[in-house]
């Protein structure tokens, strides 16, 4: 198409090039600052807690572990705490934070609604219910078979995974008629599914014994307290596909902002994008809930913040949400560990305490924009 105007003479085209260049620069700066903040908090996180270790000492231990420092340092108590207790906890927190934030961004893109969130639409509740069922009924089932076996740890993430998958699919099927997804139906159905899962979880709590009840309470508030290398080795392989798939979903999600029919016109395999996103969200939310309990508001707060910083382009939004989610959870974990030393607060309490007021502020701000 040779348009009426030749490219060289398009007035304002150079201004446009300047504009895009300055946006790219802004995005680069924002990404750099976020990444720096994330790494800084990670370093602090390894030192912070009831047993405080100076950041310089932490760096020495890490270097020693990598082979460039005195090896006897690795036998110290500090090294034990940093490498075997805080490191897996840090990595688990970063992984779960990244997974929850990306899941939130994916759900918001898929449903074309900035208020969608794995927690708000009942998916976390489904995963939590399945995890509760695994805790309470899993032991009984094994005891009933009289084999005297202990429930393997991997049963929990898988149970939660299938819970998340089933509730995600149920929600999507309920909200989709003739290929069109109704956002209002989705939110209402999500509330209903969440209430159903909540009531069943309550029923399970009612029939559980004291130990199971304590475990259940742990799910409902979320904690990174039980982190270990073995737990991490179960969760990481489930969550990593989500992180890897992100670059392949970004363009499709961008096109979906116009609507599903329009995305199809643009050459996007809409159905494949939807199915992939749904499976990945169920996978990662299920694994996250299993490993760290229900941690609210990360999925909604982080993508919103990133959109305010760099705009809604998913090619940047998704990776920066991952970094932002990791940053928020690592930071919240530091707060959770320091605020009631020597005990620690469940991290779900901290993220909701930050997240809920922020969410309200967003709603008020949106209201003002709509009025003006």
């Amino acid at each position, binding site marked *: *198409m040779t348009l009426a105007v030749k490219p060289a003479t398009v007035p304002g*085209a150079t201004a446009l090039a300047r504009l895009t260049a300055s946006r790219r620069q802004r995005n680069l700066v924002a990404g750099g600052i976020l990444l720096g903040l994330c790494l800084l908090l990670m370093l602090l996180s390894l030192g912070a807690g009831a047993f405080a270790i100076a950041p310089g000492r932490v760096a020495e231990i890490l270097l020693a572990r990598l082979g460039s420092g005195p090896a006897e340092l690795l036998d110290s108590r500090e090294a034990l705490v940093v490498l075997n207790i805080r490191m897996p906890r840090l990595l688990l927190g970063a992984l779960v934070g990244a997974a929850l934030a990306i899941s939130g961004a994916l759900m918001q893109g898929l449903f074309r609604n900035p208020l969608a969130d794995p927690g708000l639409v009942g998916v976390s509740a489904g995963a939590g219910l399945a995890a509760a069922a695994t805790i309470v009924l899993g032991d009984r089932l094994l005891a009933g078979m009289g084999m005297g076996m202990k429930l393997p740890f991997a049963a929990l993430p898988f149970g939660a995974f299938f819970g998340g998958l089933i509730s995600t699919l149920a929600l999507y099927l309920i909200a989709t008629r003739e290929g069109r997804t109704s956002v209002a139906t989705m939110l209402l159905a999500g509330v209903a599914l969440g209430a159903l899962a909540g009531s069943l979880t309550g029923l399970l709590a009612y029939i559980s014994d004291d130990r199971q009840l304590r475990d259940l309470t742990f799910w409902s508030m979320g904690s990174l307290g039980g982190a270990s290398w073995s737990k991490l080795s179960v969760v990481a392989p489930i969550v990593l596909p989500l992180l890897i798939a992100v670059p392949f979903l970004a363009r499709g999600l961008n096109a979906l902002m116009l*609507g599903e029919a329009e995305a199809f*016109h643009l050459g996007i395999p809409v159905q494949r994008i939807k199915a992939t996103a749904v499976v990945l969200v169920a996978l990662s939310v299920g694994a996250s809930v299993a490993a760290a309990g229900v941690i609210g508001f990360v999925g909604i707060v982080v993508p919103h913040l990133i959109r305010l910083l760099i705009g809604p382009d998913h090619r940047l939004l998704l990776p920066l949400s991952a970094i932002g989610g990791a940053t928020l959870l690592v930071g919240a974990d530091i707060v959770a560990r320091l605020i009631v030393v020597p005990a620690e607060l469940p991290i779900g309490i901290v993220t909701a305490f930050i997240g809920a007021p922020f969410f309200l502020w967003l709603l008020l701000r949106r209201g003002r924009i709509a009025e003006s």
Partner: protein
Amino acid sequence: MATILEARDLHFRVRGTALVRDASLQLDAGTTSIIVGPNGAGKSTLLKLLTGELTPAQGEVRLDSAPLAGAPAWKLACQRAVMSQNQRLAFPFSVYEVARLGLEGVGRSQPRGRSEQIIAEALETAGVLGLASREYQTLSGGEQQRVQFARALCQLEAGRSVAERQILFLDEPIASLDLCHQLALLDAARAIATQGAAVLIVLHDLNLAVTYADRLLVMHEGAIVAQGAPAAILDDALLRGVFRVDLAFSRLPPTGLPFLLPQQHLRAASGPALRAAGA
């Protein structure tokens, strides 16, 4: 003239109601075809059947002699761009980013400089280059419509490096535009046809349809009741039967082209000058 798209005996039903019945048509390279018809006549549904968004219950659409059904989305996207009536956008993209969405499917392999050139040209043609940094959702309906047009132009231009025989579908593209931009958009669409693409537009304004159509298709209750050159098929019987208005076409002196001015609807008590015009 080379036919790019051919549709034969298309039927489409929703819950027993036939939205499109027995529709056959062809879109030729270098021509502008315009669909007119009253509300609910099935114009948009027919357009969706032709773009592959809907699959007909009976009949077949062939694109470059190959069946449209089952063709992968990316392949179709290289060969046709669609501007639908939907102008909503879920998140606050800038005008520049909305136009760039036209390249998300087909423009992946373009170098960045080429993409920016395509986008700048499309924004310029649609008359929204000056709005490039504005947030799309803050624009007026007419401005949004022009940005959507720019997006379709981007897709068409990027797809040209893959498929030469292209189609541009526009569903009521000028519904919110002022007269100046109505003409500019239709001129741009016709220019695309002149360069070898087929253009199909759904329009309501009969005068503009007569002005721009090489081929006019009149739809009524799901069927194409007339198609051909506008001057040959538009008459007063059609106005009464299809559009349910009791009006008469006038003819433009040198060409004999029909045009419509609802003179009969002038208010009787609007003053002497108007009464004179109505008489």
